[in-house]
């Protein structure tokens, strides 16, 4: 029997592009368990927000998670019926737009319009914030073609929105673990400098934030790390207690696995110094953390400690830097690798002067290699019989970058024998510079959106 003080947080997305049918089993398990529960979706990788900002430039009403409808439609009714609150950063570059869309979606589904709050203050891309960025970035600001600038907001505005009665909290850029810390802070009423508890909830959020990466996704390695039912992975649920300790589990009847090994891999994912995992809420310390299997697909995390949060907020400034050009062509059969290497030589000569040309021999030498070609040069030619040549370069000018595609395509008639399957692509390239800004100079908060154009009341209809 679970004590009533447990808060369950289920995570149904670990990035923009994650499976959209993950939420239903999670919501089913949360509803069946009863008690307070929150559903989170984490959909903002570092670059996602810049892409959303570009989307909003093209369509001012857009700029939020493109799959918002697909994520929410299957579970919105069940969440409202069971009192499961929803917290997500799927607002991306336009939290208000996302909130309006959710209200409209509720109407389309014949549901009452939920109370929706948005978290504001993360977006520093406006002209009013320019001096703040200039002070933080100094010389690095020179000549930047800025697409987006966002502070990583912490858990407090999320907690405040929930305490004010929000059923759905739509955020832009918040630290990923704060999606979990916010609900825990609101539910348990911890002091906002209760560093140990904040750190424990932070690491619970860290285990959840990549979705299935803790429950068997991104883990399988046949014969070494076997995972059952990967086509229907169960996404994780954290059972958080009043001290912030958590047990990670997943919905019954789903695929995947949760054991000490899957949890350890995710615990250390994107961690540098284990004694200092920095978030806007706390500095979490897993130096003495314990991971213990306590049942089938149930693992308890304990021993996490906390230290006072950093004084500044991390800001990512995303800017355009030019173009990434890529081209590929395949060779198979006798001397395939030799023909691919010859094609690479031809391209190096034809594209000389355009900048560094990356060469991969996919099927022989690729991912481990370096851009300078040191690894590839050290590999003696082998006899690979199915090789895909890939070349890539960066260029600030579009016209120059386009030359790569033309030269790869011309290999059809001018290259070595038997080359086939040419594909080329040209994409704008975004770079990120990070800085820290004083917390007090980034006012953050939440506000409720009007429930919609028609009734404006938010009441059931």
């Amino acid at each position, binding site marked *: 029997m679970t004590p009533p003080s447990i808060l369950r947080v289920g995570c149904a997305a670990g990035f923009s592009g994650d499976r959209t049918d993950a939420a239903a089993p999670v919501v089913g398990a949360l509803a069946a368990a009863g008690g307070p529960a929150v559903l989170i979706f984490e959909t903002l990788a570092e670059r996602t927000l810049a892409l959303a900002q570009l989307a909003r430039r093209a369509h001012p009403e857009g700029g939020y998670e493109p799959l918002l409808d697909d994520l929410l439609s299957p579970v919105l009714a069940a969440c409202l019926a069971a009192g499961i609150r929803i917290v997500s950063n799927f607002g991306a570059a336009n939290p208000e737009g996302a909130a309006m869309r959710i209200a409209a979606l509720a109407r389309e589904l014949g549901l009452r319009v939920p109370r929706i709050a948005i978290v504001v203050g993360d977006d520093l891309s406006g002209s009013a914030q320019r001096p703040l960025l200039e002070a933080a970035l100094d010389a690095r600001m020179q000549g930047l073609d800025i697409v987006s600038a966002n502070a990583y907001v912490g858990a407090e505005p999320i907690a405040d929105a929930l305490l004010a009665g929000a059923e759905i909290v739509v955020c832009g850029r918040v630290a990923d673990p704060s999606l979990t810390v916010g609900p825990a802070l609101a539910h348990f009423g911890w002091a906002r400098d209760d560093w140990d508890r904040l750190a424990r909830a932070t690491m619970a959020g860290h285990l959840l934030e990549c979705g299935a990466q803790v429950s068997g996704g991104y883990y399988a390695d046949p014969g*070494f790390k076997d995972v059952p039912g990967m086509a229907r992975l169960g996404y994780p649920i954290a059972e958080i207690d009043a001290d912030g300790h958590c047990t990670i589990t997943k919905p019954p009847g789903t695929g995947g696995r949760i054991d000490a090994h899957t949890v350890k891999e995710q615990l250390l994912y994107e961690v540098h110094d284990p004694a200092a995992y920095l978030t806007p809420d706390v500095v979490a310390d897993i130096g003495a953390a314990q991971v213990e299997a306590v049942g089938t697909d149930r693992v308890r995390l304990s021993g996490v400690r906390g230290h006072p949060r950093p004084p500044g907020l991390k800001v990512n400034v995303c800017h355009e830097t030019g173009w990434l050009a890529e081209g590929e062509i395949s060779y198979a059969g006798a001397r395939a690798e030799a023909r691919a290497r010859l094609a690479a030589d031809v391209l190096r000569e034809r594209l000389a002067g355009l900048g560094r040309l990356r060469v991969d021999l996919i099927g022989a030498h690729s991912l481990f*290699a*370096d*851009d300078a070609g040191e690894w590839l040069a050290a590999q003696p030619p082998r006899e690979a019989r199915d090789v895909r040549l890939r070349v890539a370069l960066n260029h600030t000018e579009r016209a120059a970058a386009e030359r790569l595609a033309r030269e790869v395509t011309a290999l059809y008639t001018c290259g070595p024998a038997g080359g086939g399957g040419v594909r080329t692509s040209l994409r704008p*390239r975004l770079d990120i510079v990070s800085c820290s800004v004083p917390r007090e100079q980034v006012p953050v908060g939440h506000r409720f959106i009007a429930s919609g154009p028609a009734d404006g009341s938010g009441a059931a209809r």
Partner: protein
Amino acid sequence: MKRIEVPLHRAAHGRTGDKGNRSNISVIAWHPSLWDVLVEQVTEAAVARQFAHRHPSRVQRFLLPQLHAMNFVLDDVLDGGVNEALNLDSHGKALSFLLLDLPIEVPEGLLPCLAGAAIDPADPNPSPGDNAP
């Protein structure tokens, strides 16, 4: 005791994470009995050699003995990372498997603790993970 050379992936598993031009790779022992071997042999210097062609400006190892896990942080190994790298895998997500190719020497008595195909067909019970304390 006689020592047998095996690739690290028989003794440990791991995952890569990235932030900017920095990669972190966990190395997690399949069995607590393998921990001392890992601490002794999977050193900062050994990992720096394994990534020599990526020219890390710094390699740091953090030990988490209670988890039988270690975390490596490799600076400047991603050719600029997602921002600039021309690698198909600009995150460096595959790099855990480069680290896990590192050869290590395991005392013969610990062979049953290894994962994957047993070297000794007479001892087909490597039982990865399940007998952790």
